[in-house]
């Protein structure tokens, strides 16, 4: 049962990722990305990581993707603005590079003893600790003991992101000191002007 679910999820998630890559319209890409995140969440479930599976859906599909869609909507880009002229040589070169990295990874995976000797997914788990490893109590305990510093420090990471996001998007309420430097333009007005220009 698990194995067939995995095969379906695995193939679908690769296909979804490929669609994210190839769609021109970012809205379509985002929708396929949501599909991809959900499929990855299913794979976490098969790997006996239920807590992670839930968090994956909540944070990725629920929060991050909404943010993406929100920004895409805010920018209100027209198809002309979205057209990318990527040269053929650049496509071929980067495709070759990505393929090279993949082949190297695959070679490392194939040669590895750990991977060869790894137990099968459907094999029963003997260790009771491992069986409960993916549930909230075990993860919570780990977060507040072994990884306590990392847990606290991630608040600094988020604080940095908040400060940065606010600083970069804040509208300028007042003009820059006169007589110096570049003219300060109201970024908000610019957005409006751009939106009008693209609308007409």
């Amino acid at each position, binding site marked *: 049962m698990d194995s067939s679910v995995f095969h379906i999820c695995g193939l679908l998630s690769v296909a979804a990722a490929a669609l994210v890559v190839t769609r021109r319209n970012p809205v379509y890409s985002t929708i396929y990305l949501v599909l991809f995140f959900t499929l990855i969440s299913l794979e976490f479930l098969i790997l006996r990581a239920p807590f992670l599976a839930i968090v994956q859906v909540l944070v990725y599909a629920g929060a991050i993707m909404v943010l*993406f869609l929100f920004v895409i909507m805010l920018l209100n880009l027209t198809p002309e603005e979205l057209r990318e002229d990527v040269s053929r040589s650049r496509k071929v070169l*980067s495709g070759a590079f990505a393929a090279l990295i993949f082949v190297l990874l695959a070679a490392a995976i194939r040669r590895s003893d750990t991977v060869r000797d790894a137990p099968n997914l459907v094999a029963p788990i003997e260790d009771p600790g491992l069986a409960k490893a993916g549930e909230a109590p075990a993860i919570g305990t780990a977060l507040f003991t072994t990884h306590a510093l990392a847990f606290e420090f991630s608040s600094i990471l988020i604080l940095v992101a908040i400060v940065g996001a606010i600083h970069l998007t804040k509208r300028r309420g007042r003009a820059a000191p006169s007589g110096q430097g570049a003219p300060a333009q109201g970024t908000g007005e610019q957005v409006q002007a751009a939106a009008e220009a693209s609308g007409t």
Partner: protein
Amino acid sequence: MSTGFLPLLLQAAPAAASAGQVGLTHYLVVSAIVFGLGLLVVITRRNAIALLMGLELLLNSVGLNFVAFAKFATRDAVDGQVITIFLIVIAAAEASLALAITLNIFNNLNTVEVDEARSLKG
């Protein structure tokens, strides 16, 4: 472009075709393919939003890798899963910051193409 990966997939995971069993290999190969696709986006596309989606693909492939290793190759699977939780934290923070930069770029340059406005020479 994505079809080029399929033969590689079959070559790298011969077990996938023969047996119905799922092992560590399968997860690692899926993760490697997604990593390759994410890499492809980041180095090919110029649309800032598409680039950010590529970065999200990269982070997810790493997360899958960690959980798979935790499940199959370690005695105590908690560490790998905790790392993946932190990866999700990072992804959220990175996405918000990246979108803020994108908005700012659009306000300043009226485009979201990274290479288009070449005020900086290559």
